[in-house]
């Protein structure tokens, strides 16, 4: 198959368009799910419906201030996230914004890194379940999840099959996303 660089590697403008488009998609999805039409939304953020359509149809019109305003109008907040994905030449393109949002939600919406440290195990499990349970016989049916203590394990140890086996042999249950399903 032909090996072609990702289209956002063509220019900064293309990359900027893609991530602005992701932002618009998040806003529009929220409006759809809440049943808010553009007239109502325009009123909420103090602009004309025409301006809303113009901006949502042309994501490059956004600046940081208007992004915050549009997000607030939709009942959302905005984070600007820089990340490293081992793709310095951008051959693979950006990570979709909803991936970050979904990860944060699945981690229990932690407000800071201290809260995150207590929920890190399910992230590890959900992203790479095969490596986590490699060679380990997962009890079936899974034991009932009993608390958060067994989650306080450094992330590097979690990747060790030995540690996972020890935990399971002691009757511990390694939490999965299922345990936290809302």
């Amino acid at each position, binding site marked *: 198959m032909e090996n*072609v660089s*990702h*289209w956002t590697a063509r220019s900064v403008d293309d990359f900027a368009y893609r991530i602005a488009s992701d932002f618009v998609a998040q806003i*529009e999805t929220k409006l759809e799910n809440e049943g808010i039409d553009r007239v109502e939304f325009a009123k909420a953020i103090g602009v004309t419906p025409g301006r809303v359509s113009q901006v949502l149809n042309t994501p490059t019109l956004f600046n940081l201030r208007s992004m915050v305003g549009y997000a607030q109008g939709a009942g959302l907040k905005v984070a600007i996230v820089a990340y490293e994905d081992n793709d310095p030449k951008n051959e693979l*393109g950006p990570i979709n914004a*909803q991936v970050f949002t979904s990860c944060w939600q699945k981690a229990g919406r932690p407000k800071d890194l201290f809260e995150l440290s207590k929920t890190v195990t399910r992230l590890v499990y959900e992203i790479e379940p095969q490596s986590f349970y490699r060679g380990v016989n997962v009890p079936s049916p899974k034991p009932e999840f009993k608390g958060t203590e067994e989650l306080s394990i450094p992330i590097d140890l979690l990747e060790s099959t030995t540690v996972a086996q020890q935990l399971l042999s002691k009757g511990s249950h390694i939490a999965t996303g299922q345990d936290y399903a809302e």
Partner: protein
Amino acid sequence: MSTRTLALRLVPGLQVARGRAVGFLEGHPELDAGSAFDEFEKGDERAMRANMEHWVAGNNQPTTKFHGFPNDLDHKHCFVFKHHEHRLYGFLCHPRPKADPRFQLCALCIYAAKHRLSTDDHELRRVEEWMTIEGAVGAIRGLYPEYRGEGAKWKM
């Protein structure tokens, strides 16, 4: 009409994802989605790419950018990507039924410029027809050897 020369061209430069892909079914004058996309102006082209990639990443909304027709029994496989008046119509299929049955391909077939609110039923009917044509099935099989057509049962 001859459909022996049909081919599936994955949208070049688009993100490669585990769960979804988008391509153009080409090789017949009626299959003009790919050529229309190639001739889009820069702004329309990248908007359409961004919309495709949003779907490829696993999102099913917003419907302002793309949507299927799951409640329309006659066109339940059809799918459309939208930007301004531009519409790229195609169908969804599962081209790797054995290796990855959940993997979805959107095979785009037809371009239309839409200035009305309602979707043109004519385009959807044409897409449904293309979906079942043996040449189109073969074109998809060219990239996904497992594919036998939507609804075909995989025999072990």
